[in-house]
């Protein structure tokens, strides 16, 4: 049998910057030395739940786990019920953390790797077929669904993204990514963990959540700057009314970006606004420049098929969206399957949420409803109509809080005497809107 192909941990030249910790650049050699030192300190075996807050430490812990042959669990949702569910699914798992966190599993607290010098260690290679990370979907049921990511698939996706966004060494001076998305979310993982390992990009460590953080972070880095963000964050940043330093590109994902916002940002900031389309299961698979139309160009090597996408290293992955192929090799998104809702970068199925609601003690009937503007209006949330004689909206909310991702908690819970089900047991939208008006009145 021929030896299994292996790909280097870092496809970077010596001396290149992998990450910027504030104003301090971490070079390839320094990073590799620190990752090897940390790898030697890890427990003998187990899945690694990477719960680091700092982006550099997240990157370091991922690389160290990979060097030790351990699989990283990517968990962006840190609610206690989600951590418990994952700890139950992976009884051998331990967590790597860099701050105080209540976790229902053994914890390794990451300290600064001191006294490690940029050495001349040979670049380790990781077998392409080895599972490097596992990402999870469906935050609503408490039962996470695992999506395994072989190292080869992650590297190939990073190469495709680097080609698409001109982030290869031959494309120009090295760039720095300033990101507002957590590195444990698939989009954040691909852009701020995989790109620094595999393309001519450094990620900026440190917290960048509020607009003032992000503007300061953008001003703090030299050279080509790329902002990696989401529609809601971009909207808040643009509304803050400050001008950022010169940017090479703004990249947005997790929800469709309004063409009007993209046009305003392009004009106001003088920067191209690009979007990535992807999903946790498949990773990033296509991109577009929002102002140029609604056609998405698939990444090199990915292939759209009816109801699915073929991704190098992963095979055929079903898609949650209906898509329509266009003549020029691009495709158009026709919308989500009616049952799927998305909020804060996380997906849930309304049917599953309804099932959770039905399991609450005292609930006789109930339904979750998503407003039309759920993905574009930051104040929009799901509504639940509930029939539960003798129980209050607060009690229902309290019971739901224990069993679902808080982002999908209904706001409001509307208590009603009965749901306006038709003869088939279905709930017409218009009848629900009527209920809402009646509920708001009294």
């Amino acid at each position, binding site marked *: 049998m021929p030896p299994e192909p292996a790909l280097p941990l870092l496809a970077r030249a010596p001396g290149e910057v992998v990450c910027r910790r504030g104003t301090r650049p971490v070079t390839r050699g320094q990073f590799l030395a620190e990752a090897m030192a940390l790898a030697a300190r890890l427990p003998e075996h187990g899945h690694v739940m990477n719960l680091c807050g700092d982006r550099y430490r997240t990157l370091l812990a991922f690389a160290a786990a990979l060097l030790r042959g351990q699989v990283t669990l990517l968990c962006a949702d840190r609610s206690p019920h989600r951590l418990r569910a994952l700890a139950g699914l992976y009884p051998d798992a331990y967590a790597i953390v860099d701050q105080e966190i209540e976790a229902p599993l053994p914890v390794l607290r990451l300290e600064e790797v001191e006294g490690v010098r940029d050495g001349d260690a040979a670049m380790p290679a990781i077998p392409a077929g080895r599972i490097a990370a596992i990402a999870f979907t469906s935050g609503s049921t408490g039962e996470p669904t695992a999506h395994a990511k072989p190292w080869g698939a992650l590297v190939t996706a990073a190469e495709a993204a680097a080609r698409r966004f001109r982030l290869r060494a031959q494309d120009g001076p090295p760039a720095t990514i300033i990101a507002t998305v957590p590195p444990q979310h698939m989009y954040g993982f691909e852009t701020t963990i995989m790109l620094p390992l595999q393309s001519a990009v450094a990620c900026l460590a440190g*917290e960048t959540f*509020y607009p003032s953080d992000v503007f300061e972070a953008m001003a703090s880095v030299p050279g080509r700057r790329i902002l990696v963000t989401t529609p809601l*964050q971009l909207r808040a940043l643009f509304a803050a009314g400050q001008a950022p330093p010169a940017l090479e590109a703004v990249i947005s994902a997790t929800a469709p970006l309004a063409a009007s916002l993209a046009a305003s940002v392009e004009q106001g900031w003088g920067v191209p606004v690009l979007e990535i389309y992807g999903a946790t299961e498949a990773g990033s698979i296509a991109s577009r420049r929002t102002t140029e139309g609604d056609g998405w160009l698939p990444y090199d090597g990915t292939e759209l098929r009816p109801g699915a996408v073929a991704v190098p290293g992963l095979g055929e992955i079903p898609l949650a969206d209906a898509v329509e192929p266009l003549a020029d090799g691009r495709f158009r998104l026709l919308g989500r399957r009616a049952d799927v809702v998305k909020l804060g970068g996380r997906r849930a199925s309304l049917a599953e949420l309804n099932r959770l609601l039905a399991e609450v003690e005292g609930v006789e009937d109930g339904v979750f409803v998503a407003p039309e503007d759920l993905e574009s209006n930051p104040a929009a949330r799901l509504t639940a109509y509930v029939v539960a004689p003798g129980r209050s909206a607060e009690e229902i909310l309290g019971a739901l*809080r224990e069993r679902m991702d808080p982002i999908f908690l209904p706001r409001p819970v509307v208590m009603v005497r009965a749901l306006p089900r038709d003869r088939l047991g279905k709930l017409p939208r218009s009848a629900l809107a009527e209920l809402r008006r009646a509920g708001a009145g009294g």
Partner: protein
Amino acid sequence: MAEMRPEEMEVARLIVSALSLETRPEDIAPEAPLFNAGLGLDSIDALELALAISKKYGVQLRSDDERNHRIFASLRSLTAHIEKNRVR
């Protein structure tokens, strides 16, 4: 229920209008947590609220502010932070 000061009432109104909450401003308990239990705000709300606060009071919230947890702990602590740092 703890008494609400006029300044707290003003911030309560801002929270309710910025986030389109169904709660009435006077029903927000001044010392109850704004996130998780209590009002049950989430990270999207935090961003939206930060934007509304910076527009109205000129106060910029920051992640690396170590007091961030305490600032957002309750209506009372948030109001105190705004009063101390407001520029308009």
